[in-house]
């Protein structure tokens, strides 16, 4: 019983699956995803909303999961990189990132893909300028972004998964 003291039940949809988990109300969505649910594809970076590593899609919008309190996700739909595709069935964006060489160290990649997917859901054929704005909350220190822009454009040609 002790572990439930002070905890609150969070019911939400994660990658299409109804999920119930007891959470400490002081925890962020990022912490619950990584530590309670083991979804470590979502990376932890600056934890203050600057780097975009922890980007997930909540209700079709890209959010920094480090800035969302876990209980704000109550009843909501959350999507993480684990829900996008897997080794044998890649999401078109994942495929495009690989084909264009848009991944180097890979630490920004899950966040980049989630931001790109959120962008493409609102704008199926973005211009390069629109892609730049869409990814402006995601820092990358390796690629110089150029190949990422190309990958998103390529992913948009296939229309994303939707």
């Amino acid at each position, binding site marked *: 019983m002790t572990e439930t003291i002070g905890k609150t039940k969070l019911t939400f949809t994660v990658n299409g699956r109804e999920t119930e988990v007891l959470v400490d109300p002081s925890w962020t969505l990022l912490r619950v995803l990584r530590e309670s649910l083991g979804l470590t594809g979502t990376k932890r970076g*600056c934890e*203050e909303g*600057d*780097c975009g590593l922890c980007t997930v899609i909540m209700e079709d919008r890209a959010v920094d999961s480090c800035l969302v309190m876990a209980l704000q996700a109550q009843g909501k739909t959350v999507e993480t990189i684990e829900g996008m595709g897997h080794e044998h069935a890649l999401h078109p964006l994942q495929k495009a990132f690989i084909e264009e*060489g848009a991944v*180097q*160290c*890979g630490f920004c990649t899950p966040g980049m893909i989630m931001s790109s997917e959120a962008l493409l859901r609102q704008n199926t054929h973005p211009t390069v300028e629109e*892609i*730049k*704005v869409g*990814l*402006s909350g*995601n*820092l*990358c*220190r*390796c*690629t*110089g*972004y*150029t*190949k*990422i*822009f190309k990958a998103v454009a390529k992913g948009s040609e296939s229309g994303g998964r939707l």
Partner: protein
Amino acid sequence: MKKRGIGIGSMFYGIGYGFSRQDIGAATVEICEDGSVIVRSGEVDYGQGSDTIFCQIIAEELGVDYAEIKLITADTLTTPNAGPTSASRVTYVTGKAMMKAATEVRETMREVAEEKLGMQDLMFANGQVFSMSHPEKNISFARLAKATHLAGRSVVATAWQDITTKDVDPETGQGDAYSTYAWASQIAVVEVDTETGKIEVLRVVAAHDVGKAINPKNVEAQIEGGVATGLGYALEEQILINKGIVQNTTLSEYMVPTSMDVPVIESHIVEVPALEGPYGAKGVGEPALIPTAPAILNAIANAVGVRVTALPANLENLHRLIREQENNNKDKS
């Protein structure tokens, strides 16, 4: 008023450690009975793509499919020490060690194949070993691997590549400083707002001599990343220290380039082979960022006539320099 300017930055860069500092790459190549290949090296790929390059080199040398190669890196229990991932040395040094080790096992396998096929002019390609004059005389790489095992021949080779230089004369500075050099020029086009000091880099054209681009897309990616880092160095990034304590420890205070900051980057690959590199390749990791800041600062000088001598050339610094120049001009007139 917005003014545009163009600037050039050029550089040469010594690949590896140079100046008699030890610089040795290493790799072990092992052929398994089923023809799959295990490669071990202490070299670390931290995103620049050396694992890809290594597998390309092994595949090329053995004539096997890239996907047949299992690469194990940076495991002190099983991999030979290949030195650090630094000094833009990895492809140049350990890439060559990969080539040497693969060549050694291939030549052993060639002897077995020559005996089996009765031919001398054998070629390793597409997972097959065949006579160039009589292609019908052939054996699959996998079967040859099995045969080499059964013949009790060595199917493992470790090779080292040592590019340690002799050093220069301490009096004159003349001599053998580095094993090879990379060369590059970049041209930047900038737009400066003379009222605010805001600088926008519109375009960077980067020409890099990489010896041989083993993976051109990878080289481009290195150049693009280098240009973005060089742009941050020129315009944004500054560590503020007060009494030994860094004051700007977060990404909201220490600014790095975002997707909104990077210009159009046009890469041009120049290939002047380096004698000691694999297929003539040398490094591009650090060279990619070195000419960017000088090119941008020269472009600023070309646009507004102000010479920035202390980095970063951020909004406030450039605004101050432009105002100083205006005041100087007023004093003179």
